[in-house]
């Protein structure tokens, strides 16, 4: 079950089965923390998650071309290989993690999509209204993701997503804080412009005011930092308040850690699934 709004094409189709993710939640004064933990491949649960994520990525990146989604399903299911045009198309749309791209980039890509997968599957969160991200050129500078949810009112969360190797977790989280706090106005200005044409007037007004709401620390504005890696830390996001001091409302700072061990193997496996037959 997801909270994706029916007919909202910008959101990915829900997978048939939710994979085996263990969710946990903690609340610090500085931030609310969501933990998502799963084994990675070759463990069966890990393989299941890799397949689900690969399917999620294909469903998302190829959502305008269901025939290509079917082609991928066909190939991954052991059917006929790709036709030349299908192959060319998939190479173009998944080219960002083509073989030869550095493992760093592949992991960053997988981290962003894992975040996307989790925020669209986290049933404990408020109803999902709109998700934008991960950005098309993953390595390009810019906002990593924006989520709008509806509780008593509409609220948005601007996300920054990082992968980590375990040893550099603190550094990765701090980098994410800095990048998000430094770049927020720019990222939000872009989201603000492009989402104003929404037919839902309340939503359009929210988007038009993203930057102002952020700058003024209005209750509608939230910051989110997500990190993905092999391990789940014992403690995380305890200093987030320092970086987003203007966001003082309840639940306005959100941390997400995704632990899939071992993450590099997981990332490469997802890429392998995506590029099978290409």
């Amino acid at each position, binding site marked *: 079950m997801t909270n994706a709004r029916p007919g909202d*094409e*910008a959101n990915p189709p829900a997978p048939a089965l939710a994979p085996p993710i263990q969710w946990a939640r903690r609340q610090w004064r500085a931030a609310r923390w969501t933990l998502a933990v799963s084994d990675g491949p070759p463990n069966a649960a890990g393989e299941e998650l890799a397949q689900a994520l690969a399917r999620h990525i294909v469903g998302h*990146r*190829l*959502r*305008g*071309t269901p*025939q*290509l989604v079917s082609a991928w399903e066909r190939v991954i299911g052991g059917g006929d290989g790709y*036709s030349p*045009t*299908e192959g*060319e*198309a998939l190479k*173009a*749309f998944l*080219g960002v993690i083509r073989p030869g791209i550095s493992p760093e980039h592949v992991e960053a890509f997988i981290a962003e999509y894992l975040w996307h997968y989790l925020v669209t599957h986290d049933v404990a969160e408020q109803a999902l209204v709109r998700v*934008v*991200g*991960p*950005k*098309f*050129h993953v390595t*390009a*500078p*810019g*906002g990593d993701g924006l989520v709008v949810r509806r509780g008593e009112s509409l609220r948005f969360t601007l996300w920054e997503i990082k992968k980590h190797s375990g040893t550099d977790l603190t550094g990765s989280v701090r980098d994410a804080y800095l990048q998000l706090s*430094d770049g927020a*106005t*720019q990222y*939000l*200005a*872009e*989201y*603000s*412009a*492009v989402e*104003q*044409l929404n037919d839902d*007037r309340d939503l*359009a*007004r929210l988007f*038009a*005011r*993203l*930057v*102002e709401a952020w*700058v*003024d*620390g209005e209750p509608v504005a939230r910051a989110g930092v997500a990190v993905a890696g092999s391990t789940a830390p014992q403690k995380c996001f305890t200093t987030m308040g320092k970086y987003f001091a*203007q966001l003082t409302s309840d639940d306005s700072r959100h941390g997400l850690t995704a632990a899939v061990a071992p993450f590099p193997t997981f990332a490469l496996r997802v890429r392998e699934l995506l590029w099978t037959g290409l």
Partner: protein
Amino acid sequence: VDRALDLDRIRLALGDHARLPSARELVEKIAETEVALFRGLEEIDASLLDVAWYLHSVASALPALDLYGADRQRTAFQVSGHVFDLLLANRNLPTIDRFRFMFAAQVAYLRGDLNPNAIAAYRSRPDAAALVGFQDPSAAVRVGSGLLAFDTAWLFPAMQRLRRERDAARLAWGVDPEATVFGSSSLGIDGAWHLLLYLVYGSADNLTLARDELRRAVTNSPSSEDLDARWVAFHLLQLSDQLGATSLWSVLPPTTSPSIARAFTLARPAILSFWPPQVDLLRGDRAPNAFDADVRRMVLSIPTSAGKTLLAQVIVADHLARRGTGVCFVAPTRSLCREIEASLRRRLRLIATAAEITVSDVAFEIPLVDEVAIEVMTPERLAYLMRADPDTVLARYGLFIIDEAHTLTDGARGWTLEWVLSTLHHLSRDTGHRIVVMSAALGQRAHLVSWLDPTGEGIHFHSDWRGPRRVHSVFTSEPDWDHPRDLPRPRSNTPVRREYDAYGVLRLRPSGTGRIHQLRTTSPVGRLVLRQPSQKRDDQSTPFYKTLAPLASILGRAGPVLIISPTKVEAARLASEIAQLNPPESAAPVWLIDLAAARLGDLHPLIACLRRGVAYHHASLPGDVLLGIEEALSADELRFIVATTTLTEGVNLPVRTVIIAAQGAFSGEGYEEFITGARLLNAIGRAGRAARESEGWVVLARNAAFDAQDFERLRPTEADMPVQSVLVSDPALDQLASLEAALAGGADVALARPGPLVEGFLSYVWYVASLLEDRGQPATPDSVSEFLRSTLAWRQLDDQGRRRWHEASRAATVAFRRRPADARRRWSRAGTSLAAAAVLDEIAAQVSADAAAEAGGEPIAALPLVIRGGRLNRITALPEAQIRRIRTSRGGASRLVAIDEAALLSDWLSGLSVPGLAARYLHDVPDEEFRLEQLADHVTAAYENFLPWAVGIVIEWANLALADGDTGIQLDTSLPAFIRYGVDSMTAVSLVRAGIPSRSLATAVAGAFLAERHDPEQALRAWLCTFDLIDWRDRYHPSPAELRALIEFARPPGSRLAARLLGGEVVTVPVRTLAAVGERSAADIQEIAGEPAPARLGVWVGADRVAAILPEHYAEIEAVRATGVPLAVDVGPGGEGLTVSISLVSLAD
């Protein structure tokens, strides 16, 4: 305070936010950044970025969402544009961020109605010429930026490539890219493409299509993560209404020929959208309307860099297309005339209506060629034509555009413009003639309006709008009083002298807070030496101008610097000082140095300056050298130019920084400030090149202690620049009093010399009297007064003033009637004072008497007769000649040097160079630099202006006398032109008149033509076109400007090749065959790589160069290529060799 940093406006835009700087803090942050940039630093406060995006976001909110008011949003755009612009100064920005900031700035500037700054911001783009691929992450922002800068030359090829790649991808993928992650990018490119097509070619369908595609690009679901593409599309969509409404296709009336709009949208620089004042004036719903034939008078007051010239061009183009008469475009200097002509030529070449254009370099001839539809001329030339035959002038021209009309106030030249305008106005009061008067500096506009349009039926348009901001600053040199040093006293009677280091101090007041930011040089710029105990300044102190040179040198890092100097001598001195601070590698372009050296000699002081990248520019330098300097500056090939105000009055040469070195100078009557009012405003107005930079810097140098009021000096008010008739001025009234005294003493009014203003007035009275006589009307004081009442003076004089001038007019009219009819008619047309006309009349009589002894038949040479018997000396001694006497040295025990003017003139005509002339005639001047400088001054003063005119009059009058005497003898009338250009054949004259800027090139080409042509009937143009550009280079070694002039000369008059091509015709022309081509094949026209500009144009089939474009077609084909419009070219056999056929590629989908 520039409006961009007005505290109230920033407060309005910003609102109040705890996490953002307050309005006051923001103003100061911006100001500090400006100051840092002034110092050449790139210290950008990071918090400015948050403000910039915040304001951009506020401004970008859709109005339908009712979040912010329109005024706040507009102001927020303006401020964010400014901040983004400052952020772009950071050279370390990643490419993608640079494009994002640039696009954000462009959007902000356009939506903030500061259009030219959007183009200026685009100049900071990296890898400017790069054509990116369809899947490149920066493709969207690059296209968006290019479109908002109207960079058609890049857009056409770049977008065609993107669209081709996208179409190829569609085939390769088997799916529509719109349905993919590339959907927003694909749709955005289509939307931008159709917006471009609309802006360039019109057709509302393109605009509709563009809007639809852009909207879909923003909302396209499969590519919702392509934020950049969506963001660019969103802003282009929001701008599409504005661009649509300000495009030429919307603003120009539907009755306007499409070729007119195309002339602006295609010729470079492409004008795809009008700026706010242009829209205000030209919009169709304006009443009265600028295109309405009933609007016969327009007074346009628009600041420099606000698009005044373009307005005039539109009015000219519309006039030519709709009415059967020509256009007379008047500008105060020959340089400006050339510039106006060149920019009109670029555009009008593309207009379907045949519209040849010429610039009249001389005032003493009537080369009214039939095909010429537009003539750009000085007021003196129009005065000459009016004197010769006003009816022909009125029959020929239906539209008169008077640019820089504030020069009405400039002494004797001002009066010339006033009487010409008055007379035109008077004679056309009941006709359909249109008179457009324009200026950037018109105080008391109401006077001008009530003068030219008393019934108020015309258009009186005033705008304060301008694109680039200006930062004002004041420079002083300040001693370090805390560290005095006593100078050694070699002798006991040497006075005690105390020395202080002097530092340059620059004060800026960039913001509305009034805070003054002070910058001080880190090392001394000179020293102050005071005698003790009197504290009198000692001569060992550094002169002020020398302390200014380091500042100029520093500011030159940011862009070209124009230093306005009050006198010619100071201009040259300061230029030399700046040059000494520049490294050798900063030299001006070789072609300019070569041109100046050939014209002035290697040792002329200008040459040494040019070798270090500094030019000076004043009226004593030859016209072709001045033109070269202007060209180099506008092509960004010259960093420093020190000029007198003749430049700022004369040429539209904007720069990054203007330094006013001093506002006045010492004369016999003490220190007098004259760079004030309109003159100052014109100088300041050159700071900040519209569409090239969004900010200009102005420095006022003050050789005095700083006073905060100095900033006010840089803001002349309208009251400081009244448009006041010269006849109302004190000098004129003083001269009038002299005349009155002379008349009371029984003097002959016609021979009186009360001063140039009154003499000009008396000449005008004679002209009017003669005009009346020609029309069979009595030349009475009352009938003359009818004309006087049409002058501006008559509107501005009080009753007593009118009575006094009327009396002078009465005396002149009476004197007119006393003179013999033929003499008074001649004198009225001389264009000199009556007293000078009397002298010239005597000389003409002597010349005709001498000539009568010659044999009839061929016209006889005039030179020997003109110089015989001291006649030449009499002419050059006339007060009008204003020829400075040659001196042995600059100062000290200088004495006058006698020159054999007749021999000098003969050698000048024989083609002897300036250095050669200097060596021969000025050997008594030991300093070679000073010798060359004086000779160049002499040549310019005598031969470029006065002498050709005076000699022309003598020859004309002598010929009249010879004709009356039935002698069958006539003098050759070529001499004035020979003198003017320093050449000895009409072939060379025709080249110079056609725009060949240098005497030596004209002489060389003419000489070769006359010696080499086999067929005496062969015309010069045809002969020249038997060669190629490369031959021209080899034979004559022309500078780029000269080569372009030869190319222009080679173009047959009336050739409409470019206009026909852009009008949709297939144009086929012969080419020079280089290799055989069997059948017509697709081809490409390209410049030949490795050749300096302008390079030859080759025709390629694949990798093979098979032909070359002929010189006669070069100019027009290059004009079409410069538009960037895709062309279809094929080459194949035709006629005796190969031909190429060129047509527009169909751009419809």
